[in-house]
């Protein structure tokens, strides 16, 4: 992107100083990211979630609006825009109005540090992962403001619960991320990916058993931070009538949900970057595509990254529609009594591992990869067996 800024400055805008042009270019890229990638993606993600939920519940899901129902999110967005904008009388107006924007801001500012490909990153900060965790904590402020500002006791309860939950689960998330940062040796997102390889046994998840455990801890913590089921008590529909969301209607309500779905993607991106090798593609593929066109490796890297993110998103969506909610005190117990100690243990274990095996232990990586492969094969076998046993009629075509 510096090249692009230099190019602009030299050829068109030589009147303005270079840094102004750079700022404008970065701003433009961020806007482009928001408009072209995040917004439609969050919308399509909502549609995907509803289709997957429908399939799991033996029904179809939205398929009327647009081809296969793909424009459903547009219809929902337009409908929400046209709704009456209610502000309760006892609401705290400034807080009530700002809260959705803060939540959205906290989520969106993380997008600028996400590495989509080796050259497709808006800002390659050298504290990348720390920046991502820090800005995603802005959502807490937004949630508490929403809860308090709504002026309703139910919302306040929901806001309190949300704040407690998100803040508590930052700690295991940080510890699990630390487990990966030790081998990587840097906080920068691109460097973390560069120290992994393309093949599964070169990913950080399989490099030591401690990082395998840390992956699950990070996964759980990020799901909890995103207020997704089974941790969606703050917005529990059947208990608090949507918690801090209750008094919001129309576009403000859509902002919360938009932030939640986009947060799903950030969650998946963080997991992919730290544990699943990011955008790395096999060397042979990279060389072969580079000879075809110079931009082709970037596109392939982007595709790999997206595929990994989508796999994680799929898993999270399935979890949401299968598992019941965890109660608040059980949630807190899980975090503080189980995940934090295990997180510490993983960090110390990884540090010890790195001392014992300074060059890494590829045998362990192969072993763990093999174990994972066996688990995946067994999973599919069970699914097929279950279908046979229950004589279910399944529809393999997702676009029925």
């Amino acid at each position, binding site marked *: 992107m510096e090249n692009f800024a230099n190019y602009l400055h030299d050829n068109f805008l030589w009147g303005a100083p270079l840094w102004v042009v750079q700022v404008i270019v970065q701003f433009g890229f961020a806007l482009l990211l928001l408009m072209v990638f995040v917004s439609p993606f969050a919308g399509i993600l909502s549609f995907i979630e509803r289709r997957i*939920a429908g399939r*799991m*519940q*033996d*029904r179809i899901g939205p398929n009327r609006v647009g081809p296969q129902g793909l424009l459903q999110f547009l219809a929902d967005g337009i409908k929400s825009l046209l709704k009456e904008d209610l502000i309760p009388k006892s609401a705290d107006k400034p807080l009530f109005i700002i809260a959705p924007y803060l939540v959205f801001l906290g989520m969106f500012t993380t997008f600028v540090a996400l590495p989509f490909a080796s050259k497709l990153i808006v800002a390659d900060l050298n504290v990348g992962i720390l920046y991502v965790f820090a800005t995603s904590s802005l959502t807490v402020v937004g949630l508490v403001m929403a809860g308090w500002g709504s002026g309703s*006791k*139910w919302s306040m*309860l929901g806001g*309190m619960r949300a704040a407690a939950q998100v803040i508590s689960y930052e700690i295991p998330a940080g510890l699990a991320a630390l487990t990966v940062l030790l081998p990587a040796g840097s906080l920068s997102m691109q460097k973390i990916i560069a120290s992994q390889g393309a093949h599964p046994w070169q990913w950080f998840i399989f490099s030591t058993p401690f990082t395998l455990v840390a992956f699950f801890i990070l996964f759980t913590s990020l799901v909890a931070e995103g207020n997704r*089921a*089974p941790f*969606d*008590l703050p917005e*529990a*529909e*059947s*208990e608090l*009538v949507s918690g801090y969301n209750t008094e919001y209607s129309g576009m403000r309500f859509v902002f919360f949900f938009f932030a939640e779905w986009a947060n799903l993607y950030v969650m998946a991106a963080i997991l992919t970057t730290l544990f699943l090798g990011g955008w790395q593609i096999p060397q042979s593929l990279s060389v072969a595509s580079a000879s075809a066109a110079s931009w082709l490796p970037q596109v392939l890297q982007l595709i790999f990254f997206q595929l990994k993110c989508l796999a994680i998103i799929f898993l999270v969506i399935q979890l949401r*529609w*299968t*598992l*019941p*909610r*965890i*109660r*608040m*005190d*059980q949630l807190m117990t899980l975090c503080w009594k189980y995940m934090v100690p295990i997180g510490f243990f993983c960090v110390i274990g990884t540090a010890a591992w790195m001392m014992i095996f300074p060059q890494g232990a590829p045998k362990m990586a192969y072993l763990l990869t093999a174990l994972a492969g066996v688990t995946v094969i067994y999973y599919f076998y069970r699914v097929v067996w*279950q279908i046979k*046993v*229950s*004589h279910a009629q399944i529809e393999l075509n997702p676009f029925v």
Partner: protein
Amino acid sequence: MLLNMGPQHPSTHGVIRFVVKTDGEVMSEAMPDVGYLHRSIEKIGEICDYNGFMPYTDRADYLSAMNANQGYAMVVEKLLGLEVPRRAEFLRVIAAEFNRIISHLLSVGALAMDVGAATPFIHALKEREKVNDLMEALCGQRLTYNYVRIGGVSYDMPPNCSERCLDFLDRFEPQWDEFERLVSANKIFIERLSKVGTISREDAIAYNLVGPNLRASGVDYDLRRDIPYSIYPELDFNVIVGRGEQGEVGDSFDRYIVRVREIRESIKILRQCFSRIPEGDILAKMPKVLKPPVGEAYVRTESSRGDMGYYLISDGSAKAFRLRIRTGSFTGMAIIQKISQGMMIADLVTLIASLDVVAPEIDR
């Protein structure tokens, strides 16, 4: 802090209001406030004549309407001293047990949804739809059946009803196994339900809990076996009693698992009925205007929510003098105030859902 879990709430089953005194998450008391669905059915019972009151009994508990119908028919028949033909008795039991299955399906599904899992509810409703189709073939209605008449039933089985019903039962059992695997064995679900809202055996009897709630607290009592009516003496089934498998006897998980297993017992009963049903009349010979002699009767039937008592006082005329419907949900609400001290708000939702209260039954 005084919270109002108001009449409109996604998880109170019907229109019930709770005034919750809470301090953060932990409640000090939850007082139920009922009466939002009071339609004075008992007063209407004094205005309608006996035959015309039957549709009202459907609305007293719409989720197990057949049992409600049957109870009313039984109490009038007891006063009249009427004998119901055997085929009608079999049809009544078939309809009642199907009704028990779908009532428990909805109750268990709603409990799963209140705890947080949305998918089991949809699966349960899917099965319910199929039974609704069968009921529609039988009596023309999907929810409020008005099928039982005083002296018998109103319609006979359609031509291939037996085959369709047995086919449904064959397909339903493996689905129910899958449901159990999805929900009952789920660790989070067990954590949410076990040791929550434990009702001891003495409390259950003293507060007059009935049906699955009573059995879950360890009392081995089922009206169908212990004070049998209709053709239940000839049928062979087990009575499920809560044993405290995950947690204590009488907690929410026991109430849930009693309902899940009762569905299987109902399937057993249905298969026996279909194999034994005789030919014959479906309605006894009765005068056009029913005038029971002066007297009173109290009859209880085992509906899905426990025993539903009908108390009828007749003064010899064509209209009842006093009709009282005593339902299990009404007395079940009284215990919530006592048990809810010290529980969390999330547990209150679980407690209400596991007690399977239905608002029209409470308020009538």
